[in-house]
């Protein structure tokens, strides 16, 4: 099993979730995060004092999928999340050794 983590622009969330459904992803965990990267942050004003906010709002999606699906998942996310502009985000893949469904105690790919 693999953990696929995608960091995307917040307004792309709905599109990505739909794309993931079509490739058979059944479960996703989403976190609101702040991202720092190549994309320039915006400027905020405070009584005339400006400061640059480097950390931009992003959404992190984590999903554990079986090895066979990884490719199609990456593909689906890449397509749905891309705007072609800096700051579109990243996808990371990491190994997962075990998964358990709390409700039933099932383990391994069954648990996903």
């Amino acid at each position, binding site marked *: 099993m693999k953990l696929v983590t995608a960091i995307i622009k917040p307004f792309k969330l709905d599109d990505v979730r739909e794309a993931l459904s079509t490739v058979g992803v059944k479960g996703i965990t989403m976190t609101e995060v702040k991202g720092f990267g190549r994309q320039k942050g915006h400027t*905020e004003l405070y009584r005339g004092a400006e400061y640059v*906010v480097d950390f931009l709002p992003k959404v992190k999606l984590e999903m554990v999928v079986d090895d066979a699906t990884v490719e199609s998942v990456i593909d689906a996310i890449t397509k749905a999340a891309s705007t072609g502009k800096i700051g579109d985000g990243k996808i990371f893949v990491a190994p997962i050794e075990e998964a358990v469904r709390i409700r039933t105690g099932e383990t391994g790919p069954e648990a996903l």
Partner: protein
Amino acid sequence: MRSLKTNPGIGLGIMAVLGLLFSTAAFAADAPPPTINSGDTAWMLTSTALVLMMTIPGVALFYGGMVRRKNLLSVAAATFATTALISVIWAIVGYSLAFKGNGAYVGDLSGLFLKGMGYNSLSGTIPESVFMTFQMTFAIITPALIIGSIVERMKFSAILLFLGAWSILVYSPIAHMVWGGGWLMGNGVQDFAGGTVVHINAGVAGLVAALVLGKRKGYGTEAMPPVNLVYTMSGAALLWVGWFGFNAGSAAAANGTAGMAMAVTQIATAVAALSWMGIEWIMRGKPTLLGMASGAVAGLVAITPASGFVGPEGAFVIGIAAGIVPFLASVYLKRMMGYDDSLDAFGVHAVGGIVGALLTGIFSAAAFGGAGLSTNAGGSILTQFLIQVKGVGFTIIYDAVVTFIILMVLKMTIGLRVTEEQESEGLDINQHGERV
């Protein structure tokens, strides 16, 4: 323009006149004692509620929204506790020091614990209980405004002791001098609703406190974004609304002076909000909500001494000045001088108050549609202007000196600031055990 003893001509409702004529007719006897006017009383009861609303929730929200999340409740708590503390001090001693007795600099202690104020005591055409409580709300908001300079670093206990002492040693004397029959009043200083007594007074004390306390950790290097400008907008709006009680209520009557005070308040405030927004738009590229709100408050501050003295013309000019000068003070002067007047109590209230107090001396002239210069001015705008300068100058010096002494005494005894670690953690948790 308020006093326990006199109620100027304009202030007399037609009813009082009727009463006067009538009793003359009926009893063919001496001039009657002043009688209660239910309309004036109704408006002053209302004004008192409005001015209380300016501090809580007004100032609490206005200031609370501008600090970082970890200090939000500490600002609200300081404001709320100050409201309670000053109410008690005022009832015990402050009111007497401000409005009893004939001293040039301070009143006397004849009204300790409100001695002599009964169900039937009058002050002009309203019950003394109403006059006393109305004045109490002014005594409350003034130290509450100082909180803007000391947020995010001062110990809660030190705040209470500082503001309590300040109320007795600075606020009451200045209020006596300008409104309670003291020498500045005698000299013809025009301060209708408290440009000097409230705003310059609070703003200067704030600056001194900011200097004595020192800067917040990270000031100038870290971004300190306001936690929630919806609170700040709501606070500014409640200040605006409540200010009708502040300014029009200072007529102590429901009459033409009150009406004009309200009208010029609205005009100057709106003009100042647009001016601040405009200059910010030009110079910083964007019109901010905080800018509009700040401009509105600056306008309210500046029109305060003038309302009840000036007409619409004066209101337009004061509004423009109030949008621009405090903006420059809060943004550029502060950065240049490097003090951490955190929420600009000085930049907005002292600077706005000075602008207003001085312009009052010009636009109160009948030539500009005002209600007229003080008799001391002998018809000369220049003389009135210089009288205003004297009032402002004296207040600044007296205030700065006494504030400094109070703070140094506290610093050397209980200490003023929280520890560095507490400052990092935030005052909400470590001063109050609460969190948002």
